[in-house]
């Protein structure tokens, strides 16, 4: 696999960096930051969805009991949507990690001295 073109001090080094150099590198810091930004955004979406759902049921009964079918209330598709959305968030994270996180991890690991 071709190494992505990058600028900065860490581009050319392959297999000759100490652990400390890798830890101090801007690439590593950016990776850690990126990982937690992605996690926090997804976690925030999960919170808004789930606690929003619970609080909506608790506080706005008129809204959630309106009919969306002959007898079906809006609350039913909402509950189903929370479960599906939670799974999609998980799937998005795995997709992101496979596509963006893991290659960067491999690249940084390959810079480490054996």
């Amino acid at each position, binding site marked *: 696999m071709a190494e992505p073109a990058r600028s900065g001090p860490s581009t050319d080094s392959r297999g000759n960096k100490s*652990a*400390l150099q*890798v*830890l101090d590198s801007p690439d*590593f810091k950016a*990776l*850690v930051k990126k*990982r*937690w930004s992605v*996690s*926090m955004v*997804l*976690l925030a979406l*999960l919170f808004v969805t*789930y*606690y929003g*759902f*619970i*609080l909506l*049921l*608790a*506080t706005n*009964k008129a809204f*959630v*009991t309106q009919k969306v*079918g*002959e*007898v*079906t*209330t809006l*609350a*039913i598709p909402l*509950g*189903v949507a*929370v*479960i*599906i959305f*939670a*799974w999609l*968030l*998980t*799937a998005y*994270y*795995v997709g992101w*990690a*496979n596509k963006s996180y*893991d290659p960067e*991890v491999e690249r*940084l*690991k390959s810079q*480490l001295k054996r």
Partner: protein
Amino acid sequence: MTHLGVIQQLVLQQAQQAAPQATTTLGKPTVASIGFFFLIVAVTLVITYFAAKKTKTSSEFYAAGRSVSALQNGFALAGDYMSAASFLGISGMVALKGYDGMIYATGWLVGWPALMFLVAEPLRNLGKFTFADVVAFRLRQKPVRIAAAIGGILTVLFYTIAQMVGSGALIQLMFGLKYEIAEIIVGVVMLAYVLFGGMLATTWVQIIKAGLLLFGVTILTGLVLARFGFNPGNLYKAVVDQYGQPSLEPGGFVANPVEAVSLGLALMFGLLGLPHILMRFYTVPDAKAARKSVLYATGLIGYFYLIIPIVGFGAAVLTPGGRAFITSIDKGGNMASPILAEQLLGSGFLGFIAAVAFATILAVVAGLTLAGASAYSHDIYVNVIKGGHATEEEQVKAAKTATVVFGIFAVGLGILFKGQNVAFMVGLAFAIAASANFPALLMSIVWKRFTTMGAVWSILVGAFSSCIMILLSPTVWGEVFHHLDAAGKPYGILPWKNPAIFSMTAAFVAGIVVSLVTADQGAQDKFEDEKLRTYLGVGAE
């Protein structure tokens, strides 16, 4: 207790078992039910026999030699999580209460994405056998391990007692066995799995059980939907015709927002502190596999929670006599799925569903026992008593001894707590997990300034504040210890049924404040090295 009122009902039923009516064979052992029961136990024991041959070292005993694939681990995680409370409890609750049962189903799923975003990969990269490995990674081993083992064992023990008491009631209802005999059978078979096969056998038992459970519930759902032209709208229409529109509306379940959010927090973050779930992350080869296994588990569990309400609604409308008949068998509605199974496909299918329910309990108890035993043998015996230097032989022996002791305790406590309200114990298990284990675990991963004393205080404050708050709650103080107010209603010294919103906050505050006033230079220095392992997996086993 709102949360898991389900299991509580299981147990309350022992005393008031209604005589089964002519239309069901529940409570009378039939050839089909006994046949399926022995078939499932026999197949899983054969697997245990083969697993036993591969289980020699401690890494094989606790972590299945890190040889489990992501898909297998996804099934095993799902198996560990979908206990009898999910299968029988949620379908029963939907059958009797309608929409409120669905609220439970969503709450039980949303911890999984949080587990993925916050701890799945660091856990795999930092740990060896137990979550205490992660908390103690850069801190002083002894105090942290002792505190973490206390948090872990408390969680597992309360979870186990609830499962054991629930299983006794269930087996009694399904097979007509005596409660004590049922407890001993569960204990012996569970010990056989864990002792001889360790984590590998337990994993395979979970995989099979998860597969059987999903298969059984899928068949039930398909059969129900077939009666309504595969249109859920027609099913809902039948429910409303029979029980009125409120069946499809949220009831009193989430009326109090503080209570609703507190329950949500316990369900969501309790998962991130359940030792028997967390230790599954060490059975896969690396962080990538850990991540994928969570995706599979979330998909399987999500699918299960999406279809189980259909089974519940189906039981309410397709069983002659409906809700009244279901409650005549079991007041909590826990027999709704088995009753429906018999209605749709006869007593053979009932036997199958009953055997699956039994396998479910067995497998969950086996997973819990292994988690409890490793908290003792790995965290206390190897790392505290032996200072980290124990031979493989000593380690496996300590683990097996701890397993036997834990198993005997589980059976004994299960018998002792017969007929007790166990809902508070499951609630306690989730609340302790969310308060004692999760905050310390998270802070040790993300916060450089976290200190040994901060971890110890966070764990202890979380564990004890959650226990004490539940003790003083309306559920325990009122319903269990029978403190009634002037109107004859059970009351608590504290008004809240679920403490997580307070006890979890207390654990975080304790961890932060104590860390800020104590210094732990060694821990700060090691945090940098730890990063390499946390994020890149360098040096992870």
